[in-house]
């Protein structure tokens, strides 16, 4: 198998005297959807926060494409090409889809007007239309504030925003938790399309059937450590649950 694109080794994180991560490992390979699962308190959120720069590890190392990196802040993560879609969507509800897609990275006009900060709205709208279309996201009205969109569409805008800027890895934290059946299917479809474009996706989810349905590989955290890795094809719900709850000793069918 190819070298991991993103690799975490021996990550330790304390909150006071609570040990959230006790030497956790994690791998993301090129072009895959890898699910990160675990019971509540297993350390999933903490690990994602560390890999996306929101928190700093006490010990351990992170390598990206074989080079050691310091993910010292979310901005640094973005600079490295790592984007995260948070559970509480980080969108500005009063701005439209295009403005959200380019929020913080606006395109300005050419020439002196651009230097004064004048925005090139038509370029951003064109770029947004293209970005949404490539992900199969159907925005009836791209000029409407995202607050007017459905939950699934909003999630899609948030995902599209990450895809647009990520060139290494995308983390999706419970992307379908608040969605209905149809909308969930759409978002999963979007996730597959991202993978098919070559950008690996890390899916953090509680939803086992969904994980088995969409992931290529599954890594299981328990009590702050990686306890098992599965190939999604062939893995069963029972195996996953056993790994999450400690009913399984050692490594699962190693990927």
């Amino acid at each position: 198998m190819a070298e991991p694109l993103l690799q975490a080794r021996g990550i330790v994180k304390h909150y006071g005297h609570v040990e959230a991560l006790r030497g956790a490992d994690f791998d993301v390979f090129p072009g895959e959807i890898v699910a990160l699962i675990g019971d509540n308190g297993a350390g999933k959120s903490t690990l994602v926060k560390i890999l996306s720069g929101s928190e700093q590890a006490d010990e351990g190392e992170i390598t990206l494409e074989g080079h050691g990196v310091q993910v010292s802040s979310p901005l640094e993560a973005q600079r490295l090409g790592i984007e995260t879609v948070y559970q509480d969507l980080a969108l500005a509800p009063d701005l439209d889809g295009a403005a959200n897609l380019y929020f913080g990275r606006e395109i300005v006009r050419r020439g002196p007007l651009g230097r004064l900060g004048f925005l090139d709205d038509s370029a951003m709208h064109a770029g947004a239309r293209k970005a949404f279309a490539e992900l199969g996201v159907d925005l009836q009205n791209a000029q409407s504030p995202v607050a007017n969109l459905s939950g699934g569409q909003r999630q899609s805008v948030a995902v599209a925003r990450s895809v647009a800027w990520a060139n290494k890895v995308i983390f999706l934290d419970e992307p379908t938790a608040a969605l209905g059946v149809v909308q969930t299917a759409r978002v999963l479809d979007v996730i597959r399309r991202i993978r098919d474009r070559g950008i690996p996706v890390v899916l953090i989810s509680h939803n086992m059937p969904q994980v088995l349905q969409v992931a290529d590989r599954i890594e299981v955290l328990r009590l702050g450590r990686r306890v098992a890795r599965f190939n999604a094809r062939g893995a069963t719900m029972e195996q996953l649950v056993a790994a999450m709850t400690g009913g399984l000793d050692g490594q699962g069918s190693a990927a």
Partner: protein
Amino acid sequence: MSGVTEDKVLPNPADDTNGPQAPAEPSEGVLWRRLLRTNTAWIFLVLILLVAFFSILKPNNFPTEFNIRAIATNAAVLLIIAVGETFVIITGGIDLSVGYVLLFSGVTAAQTMNAFGNPTDRGWDLILLGLLVALVSGLAWGTFNGVLVAKAKVPPLIVTLGTLGMAWGMAQILSNGQDIRYIPSLLASVVGAGKFFAVPWLVVIAALVAAAGAIVLRMTRFGRYTFGVGSNEEAARRAGINVDRHLIKVYALSGLLAGFGGFLALAYFTTTTISGHANDNLNAIAAVVIGGTSLTGGIGTVVGTTIGVFIPAILASGFIIIGLQSFWQNVAVGAVLIAAVFVDQLRRRSRERS
């Protein structure tokens, strides 16, 4: 990995020839319906109805050139501070201090111009110096507000209530509570009372400020960040926007415009009018809110604010002309203000339900 990089969606927009589902441009009918759903359209309708009402009632007194000019001139200074207030309220904040920052800046400008003896016959050099002092005074108060809001995390309501009192007190300390009544007559006759063709200079200046404000808000990154910060501050932070610095800039802008307003008020009244600015704060906020800017942030327009400034001005003039006590103006403006916020709430609730 370079192949991955090249696959990024973001896009050279030029090669976007035919996205599979490029939405059709909204037709004119749709645009009109969309406009009707905005507060701005409704409040503009209210403005037109008021003008029509007073014009029909007093066709010989209300819609006259003299009266229109008077209404516009009276509204000019208020419009300038309301433009700054619009930016502040769109960030989800509030600036209660504008009226007294305006007063303070007028006092410092007047004192500067009086520092070299009686300024009545002095020329543009002294006037420009006075303008500079007024702008710097306003900018300083505004920056002070912004730093306290953004860095010290004191709620804007409290910060600007505090600086309201401080600016008022300082203005009185500096002037010993006495109005300064001498300003260069050139300033009074040209800026205060002069006209550009038939339009008073004050109105021209206010219109330019409002136009600039509208352009900055709608068309620049500064405006986009103002909406973004007011809409979801956390999202703005995660998007890498320096939220603190932006908030400081917005409050500084509000202070700067209040300072400019103070200088223009000085030109118009030819005195510092220390006791005459008690209502400026609330009138500015009322104008912004009547104009459809949401107190919770993220929504607002300068066009709306402009209309919001003119509704009280037209009520005041109209009530006097039809012979009502002018005090009724306050009652009417209060009612319009509450109605405007009520409509805004309804709109938000219906949006959240959808």
